[in-house]
């Protein structure tokens, strides 16, 4: 039984570690921290591997553990909580002309507050459904869908503004 779990764990880690790494990297914005978060998260996951009975829920469960591991960091948690999740933040971003000058998609992803972007990143990277995202974030499916819509609207608006700028004015951003 243990051998079978171990083999299954190996298989899941190999399948999902790239996308989970990119999720951790988006959260942490630092490769070394992202790897530390991922290693610690999956060590925890291994500790309770048998608790997930429905393999269909495995992926969302892994995202939840990675996310929780990241938010253990108090400094980051405070920073995200301070970001207001309301329309005013998005409106401010849309109106920030200096910012929209020379936008690149990575700048957009970095700039939209993490609390707003997170459900969209989960959908985009992990292909999670609204229900799965709701379970990762601990909110209702309706609330998850609303957040995703708002994030997508914000990104769409900013990308349109970026496209309006001549290509020569854009800056290459190296993360």
């Amino acid at each position, binding site marked *: 039984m243990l051998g079978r779990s171990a083999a299954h764990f190996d298989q899941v880690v190999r399948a999902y570690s*790239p996308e989970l790494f990119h999720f951790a990297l988006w959260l942490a914005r630092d490769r*070394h921290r992202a790897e530390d978060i*991922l290693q610690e998260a999956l060590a925890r996951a*291994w500790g309770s591997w048998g608790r997930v009975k429905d393999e269909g829920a495995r992926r969302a469960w892994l995202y939840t553990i990675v996310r929780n591991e990241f938010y253990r960091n108090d400094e980051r948690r405070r920073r995200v909580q301070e970001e207001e999740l309301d329309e005013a933040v998005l409106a401010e971003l849309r109106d920030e002309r200096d910012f929209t000058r020379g936008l690149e998609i990575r700048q957009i992803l970095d700039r939209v507050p993490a609390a707003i972007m997170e459900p969209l*990143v989960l959908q985009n*990277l992990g292909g999670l459904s609204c229900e799965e995202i709701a379970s990762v974030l601990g909110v209702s499916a309706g609330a998850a*869908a*609303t957040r995703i819509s708002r994030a*997508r609207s914000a990104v*769409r608006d900013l990308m349109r503004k970026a496209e309006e700028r001549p290509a020569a004015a854009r800056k290459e951003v190296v993360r």
Partner: protein
Amino acid sequence: MNEIEARRALLSDPRRLAPELAEAIARDARLAAVREELLRADDDMKRALTAAPVPEGLAERIVLRARYGAGSRWGLALAAAAAALAIALPSYLDRFHRARALEIARDEAMLRHVAESTGELEDDGHVEPAAFRASVARLGVPLRLPGYRVRHLANCVIAGVESRHFVIDGPRGPVSYVILPGALGDAAMRTLEWDGMRGVFTQRAGATIGAFATAGSVARPDLERLLLAVAG
């Protein structure tokens, strides 16, 4: 489903379409165009989110850490050594990948140790050749005397293994060396960079030997020459 409802549903998920939404899109070319635009934006976003390369050997390190309980990424060496003894690996390929992941993790631990141990760059004066030889000999690694003044020599523990760290006055500034016993035997020279610090690594007598300098101060070929001058 009216157009406003359809647009709202598309914004929340343009890939998973409920039958009602799919019908609405089939009926309305504007909705179909909105969906196409959203899918293109999603693809752009995914490319940006996944642009960074996944670290080599990541899955192996995760498995080793989770299953054999190393304290941290840098403390992986002991866990991996235990793992190597405890597991009968199913194939040569698996053995190769795991050994390589372990060596890279050890190299990273050495590099991070040097980058973070700025105190080791302090000049302690001249370390006598006899003291240098005796200290290194205790690790069982035969090294040549560096052709430059050894200004610092320290015992340290990296990845749970007793190691040596010494610093010379190189031709273009200080160069650190670290000797970390417990190598698995891959003799190929490797280079890693982290936080402005460059390290080149090789193996001798069951130990990994690394030479380190800030990336801007010593070119990689020079660093390799400095490593080989000591490692032989």
